[in-house]
């Protein structure tokens, strides 16, 4: 049952700066990276190696923290410490800046596109989560500003099938949001982590949520259901992975194709966890299937599973590099 992570390629993507985030395009053929050099780079495979196809250098005045592809793959959103979110439109092999979303009072930490393609969410150190609607004419409008967190909001992620949003914060909590009468509101607060929650990931079916934290644990949460199967809107922590990570866990990613869970850690390591199939799913047990202790020379900030090719994983680091790995569950 032991797996392995094989390094395919290492790329020096953002010279002399941190690489904060990497995101695969929906087709799985392009990788977007962003970082402390204020640029976004788009990478594509040429033969056996990943080459830079495009550099988007003039979109932001400060660090670009997160990039996110629209579900159709035609747009890219970038969130920056300059307090703006830029929307880029893909035209042939290039990207042009379509619009800039303003409103947050300070650094935007994350941007994420809903699976429907019509909604976008952003979050910021200003403690708020903003939900934006896009119409057919590429017009963006903020439809809700939600202030449920008491501190810096680090990450936002949409549910894979329902119109439900989750956010992670420096206040050690996770919030779940739903729309009620045209307004988005916090419907549940998940408490349990002992320090900043850095990132979140839903499982492929959207039944469970994984969170990772500065407290060096990953928690798995499940929505409680009442006797008739309907939700009572509260979430319980059904599993805590502790003792595996040496330092802050900056990112967690749940593979849509295989169900494997990957983590990015401040101890420079990348780990992959698998669920024990023999155990009751109400009280899941995860075991560490693969571990590369020095995946990068510095902190690993992000981990992302390729949406089309099972086992293909991208990671990036404080040393400005990203790396592509192949994960095999039985080696």
């Amino acid at each position, binding site marked *: 049952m032991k797996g392995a992570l094989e390094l395919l390629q290492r790329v020096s993507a953002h010279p002399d700066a941190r690489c904060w985030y990497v995101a695969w395009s929906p087709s799985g053929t392009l990788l977007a990276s962003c970082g402390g050099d204020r640029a976004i780079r788009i990478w594509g495979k040429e033969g056996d190696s990943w080459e830079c196809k495009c550099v988007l250098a003039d979109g932001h005045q400060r660090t670009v923290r997160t990039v996110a592809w629209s579900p159709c793959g035609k747009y890219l959103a970038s969130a920056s410490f300059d307090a703006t979110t830029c929307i880029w439109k893909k035209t042939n092999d290039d990207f042009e800046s379509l619009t800039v979303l303003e409103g947050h009072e300070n650094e935007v930490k994350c941007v994420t596109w809903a699976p429907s393609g019509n909604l976008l969410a952003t979050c910021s150190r200003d403690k708020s989560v903003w939900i934006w609607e896009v119409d057919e004419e590429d017009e963006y409008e903020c439809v809700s500003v939600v202030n449920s967190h008491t501190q810096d909001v680090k990450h936002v992620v949409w549910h894979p099938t329902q119109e439900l949003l989750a956010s992670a914060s420096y206040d050690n909590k996770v919030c779940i949001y739903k729309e009620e009468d045209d307004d988005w509101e916090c419907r549940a607060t998940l408490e349990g982590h002992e320090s900043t929650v850095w990132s979140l990931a839903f499982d492929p079916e959207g039944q469970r949520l994984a969170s990772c934290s*500065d407290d060096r644990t990953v928690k798995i949460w499940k929505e409680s259901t009442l006797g008739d199967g309907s939700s009572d809107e509260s979430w319980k922590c059904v599993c805590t992975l502790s003792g595996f990570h040496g330092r802050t866990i900056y990112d967690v990613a749940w593979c849509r194709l295989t169900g494997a869970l990957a983590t990015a850690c401040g101890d420079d390591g990348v780990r992959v966890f698998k669920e024990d199939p023999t155990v009751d799913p109400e009280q899941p047990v995860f075991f560490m299937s693969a571990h590369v202790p020095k995946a990068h020379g510095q902190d690993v900030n992000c981990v992302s599973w390729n949406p089309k090719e099972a086992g293909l994983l991208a990671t990036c680091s404080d040393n400005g590099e990203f790396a592509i790995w192949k994960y095999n569950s039985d080696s």
Partner: protein
Amino acid sequence: MEEKALEVYDVIRTIRDPEKPNTLEELDVVTEKCVEVQELGDEEYLIIIRFSPTVPHCSLATLIGLCLQVKLQRCLPFKHKLEIYITEGTHSTEEDINKQINDKERVAAAMENPSLREMVEQCVTEPDD
């Protein structure tokens, strides 16, 4: 290990206090004993620094923490992980300050703020830099 601790101390002792015309060493904000070094593995060390700000003012304590982060990141020649804390009992909001200082995303964003960056540069730049 002691050698490594001294190497670290050498980097931080000359950092200037944001308010007073003295170094952190002169003001006893940092001392040789405030540096702890643990071996993490292959030529990599965990460095823990506990500093005592002279006044309980929150923003100055955070600023000193920021200066420590920045100078060590720039000047330490060996592979390391860093933890910086206010000495226990020296501040009423020490947990809040410690959390901020050790959040690398907050530190990075602070250094992109021109006025904060200027203040830090003034404290960490050596005269012959």
